[in-house]
């Protein structure tokens, strides 16, 4: 029922010209907002997302404060003009769920017990959405948290894989998300080798599931290199070689 058009041609090329294991062009810029303690602008193909981090700061309302650690709060929000049909600006159930899984994906990387009685607010604003915006948001938020100088155990890289025309592909776009067979967004802590976000919708056999996970993690490792490069570029200029990048 979901096979309306062919999404991969005979040469193994996808509708946007990519190979099956190729990421969309990624652009990350660090420190784009003056007022924020940390910020990042990130593009995954046509996804355009801006992230701001405020904190550690005083907690309002005060009863939310925790005596032994900081409270991490995340808001994933789509601008009304970010999608084809205007989106009602009020937070939808989808956005509330994504905000929650984003927080769960970022929290393992943060040393929140270094900042008792404070809050760290992460605001993710999707200016333009193109499939995979939750992963883009998480990857951007991780860079913004590093830019804010929050103590971290690892970076959080994120990337989706999926099943399209019976093939496992990396980083699915909007069209592949809507007409493909399955979608698996993953957030991954590359140095700790841990998965902090995982969702699946669509049918996958056990073998496909494992291949999809491997594909997504390979993608996350590439995203991680770009996150590091973006941070190095802001803090050390262009000349420094990050090492390990392909």
């Amino acid at each position, binding site marked *: 029922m979901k096979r309306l058009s062919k999404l991969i041609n005979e040469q193994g090329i996808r509708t946007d010209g990519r190979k099956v294991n190729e990421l969309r062009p990624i652009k990350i810029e660090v420190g784009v907002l003056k007022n924020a303690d940390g910020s990042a602008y990130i593009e995954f193909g046509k996804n355009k997302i801006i992230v701001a981090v405020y904190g550690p700061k005083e907690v309002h309302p005060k009863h*939310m404060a925790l005596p032994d650690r900081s*409270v*991490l*709060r995340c808001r994933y929000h789509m601008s009304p003009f970010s999608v084809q049909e205007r989106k009602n600006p009020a937070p939808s*159930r*989808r956005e*509330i*769920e994504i*905000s*929650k*899984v984003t*927080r*769960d994906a970022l*929290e*393992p990387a943060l040393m929140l017990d270094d900042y008792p009685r404070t809050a760290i607010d992460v605001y993710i604003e999707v200016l333009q959405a193109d499939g995979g915006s939750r992963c883009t948001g998480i990857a951007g938020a991780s860079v913004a948290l590093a830019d804010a100088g929050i103590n971290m155990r690892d970076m959080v890289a994120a990337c989706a894989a999926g099943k399209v025309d019976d093939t496992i592909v990396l980083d699915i776009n909007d069209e592949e998300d809507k007409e493909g067979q399955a979608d*698996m967004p993953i957030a991954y*802590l590359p140095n*700790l*080798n*841990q*998965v*902090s*976000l*995982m*969702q*699946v*919708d*669509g*049918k*996958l*056999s*056990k073998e496909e*599931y*494992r291949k999809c*996970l491997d594909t997504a*993690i390979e993608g996350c490792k590439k995203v991680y290199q770009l996150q590091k490069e973006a941070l190095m570029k802001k803090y050390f200029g262009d000349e420094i070689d990050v090492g390990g990048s392909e």
Partner: protein
Amino acid sequence: MSKKSNVIVEHLRRAQMNDLLAAGKRLDGRGVTESRPMKIETDVIKKANGSALVTLGNTQVIAGVKVQVDKPFPELPDKGLLICSAEVLPLASAYAEPGPPDEDAIELARVVDRGIRESEMIDLKKLVLIPGEKVLAVFADVSVLNVGGNLFDATSYAVVSALLTSKIPKMEVKDGKIVDTGKLMETPIDAVPISVTMARIGDTILVDPTSEEEACMDARVTMTTDAEGRVCAVQKGGTGTFSVEQINHVVATAISKGEEIRAKIKSVTGSG
């Protein structure tokens, strides 16, 4: 926002739990892949098209299915609607409060909905009356009556059981108008999705966590599989992580445990 479990587990109890887990045992005497006793009663609400009361250990939830005529989504004119919702009633725990659903309740409803939807449990094409204009909408609403851990699976089993035993009104189209024949027909069921929720505490992964275990867990994952052993929906939750090996390992548990529970639900609901 960053709401941790409301259940407080004393240090000694937690230490006891960890000691037992190291030996592959649990506080209530279960093995790590053992579910709590489950009781399913169907047709408990006669006014609903289908209903189920599920008791899973201390957790108790009730699901009701209602069917009504509605407009299809503009982008899916040839499909009926299926909408799952879940609510934790204020009577379900000392910490539940009245008011709009919080993020935990929204996640619960969306994860259960995703499993039912992605497995294509109901053949939505058979719910179309006038393409693009009138379709049947199946609402599966769940109320949590007692919070006792693993709301995801209890809710999911209740929805599946209620749908499996539901009868929907037989409608006819006469001169472009919808006429209720007063008869009932079987809901068009194609698959029986079963969710299995696993919690990680330290290096141990356990099935069907209690409230106490959820309060101590590092992370959880809910995995919904169908009878063909395909993964239909996954949701990782909690503020911890899983290693890649663990994520690869849990899929096998979800499939084998899913088979066991599917057989039980099928026998209770008399569907195959």
